[in-house]
């Protein structure tokens, strides 16, 4: 049950950004309230007065007026910027404001969890309740986080010191937002497709704002498109995950694959390959039905160039899939001393999977049992429990 706010999502980032520039990020909460109120006002007054000639300017002006009312009520002594209710679109560059808002929100001062809430609320135009639904948290928790984040920001943070240096953290935040949607770590859903799609939308919005042909941007967009193309095939009717080898490839979304290749092409101009490039390459291969050998190649490349616990684990799984279960178990054994890897349910379930292929039911069941005890989304848990039950039955 998602509450729907008026359909002005695309205006949200622009209006918020303009007001943040004029009034400062310390008033972010009041700004968000004022913007929401302007939307409600538009919703019910436009049918009476007719749609204004410039809806965008109408909304900005309405939001600004409401914000000033808010601030007057709370702090009588506040100095306000010079009033300018003229057409906002004429003499300003809203794109510049919006861009600054991205930089502000993705500031390293903020924790990732705070950035996520601010990105969705401010740039994405989602309500706190919608964000709470997406993140499987309470609305109060989301509001608390926004409020805490706001207190860490001050007007100086809006100054762009070095745009090129500021871009990587933004891309990283968007990438993390996407992966969180692509495979939920906890909660009732295995995937949160809408979160992944929202991350894509924000990345596209940012790409059009910067107007630049940054190859890393294209690589990130490519990897998002390729991965989104497979969403329809990744879960069954009950929301349980389907393994790659069992996925119905005809369900892959062709238009996203095409968009992925378009951006991959544009990403080629890079002088240095980013993590996004390699992951886009991998995702392109999977989406276009690459062999286990192809996938092993990409996983090796990623683990070598951008080593991380997750990359090592994925590589071990790719080894087992291509070279056989025993090789996979050997590779997993080599990395088990890393606590970041060994405590993931993915590690234990990979062991369970390879032991099942070797027909060692006892060891497989043990591993699945361990995996079930670890934090994860409930569909993954259910599918592991299913595999565990099958093993126990066939053992009797």
């Amino acid at each position, binding site marked *: 049950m998602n509450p729907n706010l*008026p359909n002005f999502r695309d205006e949200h980032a622009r209006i918020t950004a303009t007001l943040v520039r004029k009034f400062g990020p310390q008033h972010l909460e009041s700004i968000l309230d004022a913007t929401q109120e302007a939307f409600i006002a538009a919703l*019910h*007054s436009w*049918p*009476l007065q*007719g749609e204004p000639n410039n809806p965008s300017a109408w909304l900005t002006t*309405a939001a600004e007026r409401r914000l000033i009312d808010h601030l007057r009520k709370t702090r009588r002594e506040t100095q306000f910027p010079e009033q300018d209710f003229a057409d906002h679109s004429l003499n300003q560059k809203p794109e510049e404001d919006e861009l600054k808002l991205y930089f502000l929100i993705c500031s390293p001062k903020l924790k990732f969890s705070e950035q996520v809430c601010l990105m969705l609320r401010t740039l994405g135009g989602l309500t706190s309740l919608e964000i709470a639904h997406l993140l499987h948290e309470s609305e109060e928790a989301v509001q608390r986080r926004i409020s805490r984040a706001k207190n860490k920001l001050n007007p100086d943070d809006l100054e762009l010191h070095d745009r090129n240096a500021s871009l990587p953290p933004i891309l990283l935040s968007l990438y993390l937002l996407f992966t969180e949607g692509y495979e939920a770590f906890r909660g009732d859903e295995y995937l949160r497709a809408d979160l992944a799609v929202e991350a894509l939308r924000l990345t596209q919005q940012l790409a059009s704002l910067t107007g630049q042909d940054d190859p890393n941007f294209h690589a990130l967009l490519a990897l998002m498109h390729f991965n989104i193309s497979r969403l329809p095939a990744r879960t069954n009717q009950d929301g349980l995950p389907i393994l790659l080898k069992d996925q119905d490839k005809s369900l892959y979304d062709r238009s996203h694959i095409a968009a992925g290749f378009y951006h991959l092409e544009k990403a080629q101009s890079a002088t240095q390959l980013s993590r996004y490039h390699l992951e886009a390459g991998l995702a392109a291969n999977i989406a276009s039905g690459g062999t286990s050998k192809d996938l092993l190649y990409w996983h090796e490349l990623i683990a070598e160039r951008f080593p991380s616990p997750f990359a090592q684990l994925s590589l071990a799984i790719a080894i087992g899939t291509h070279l056989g279960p025993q090789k996979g178990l050997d590779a997993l054994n080599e990395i088990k001393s890393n606590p970041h890897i060994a405590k993931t349910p993915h590690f234990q379930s990979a062991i369970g999977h390879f032991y099942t292929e070797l027909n060692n039911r006892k060891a497989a069941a043990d591993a699945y049992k361990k995996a079930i005890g670890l934090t994860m989304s409930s569909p993954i848990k259910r599918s592991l429990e299913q595999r565990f039950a099958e093993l126990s039955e066939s053992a009797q």
Partner: protein
Amino acid sequence: MSKYLLMIYNDIDEIQRWMAMPPEEQAEAMKDVAEKYIAYTKRLMDEGRYLASEGLGNKGKVLLGKDQIEITDGPYIFAKELVGGFFYFTAENLEEATAIAQDCPALYFGARVEIREQMQY
């Protein structure tokens, strides 16, 4: 708990009166509309019953005819009233929904308000 659709039927004469107001007067009147609707929407949200709400523009088409479909511009040519928007919310029963509908600011602005219970399957 059931879901209810509250439909707002604005009077055509009233809409024309609003649209003909001089800009300053209209701005003042709009402020009043905004205040009342914001308060009402927030109340529904605070009570946890708000599901959605939208406004409808005046642009539209009317389609009519079983064998030969005739398409004409805008509903206002035929109607005395125009659906201006709706609220969609939850309530315990029709009585409670009606009580909530009584506070809808649309009434204050001369509109007719209709409340309908969503069918349960």
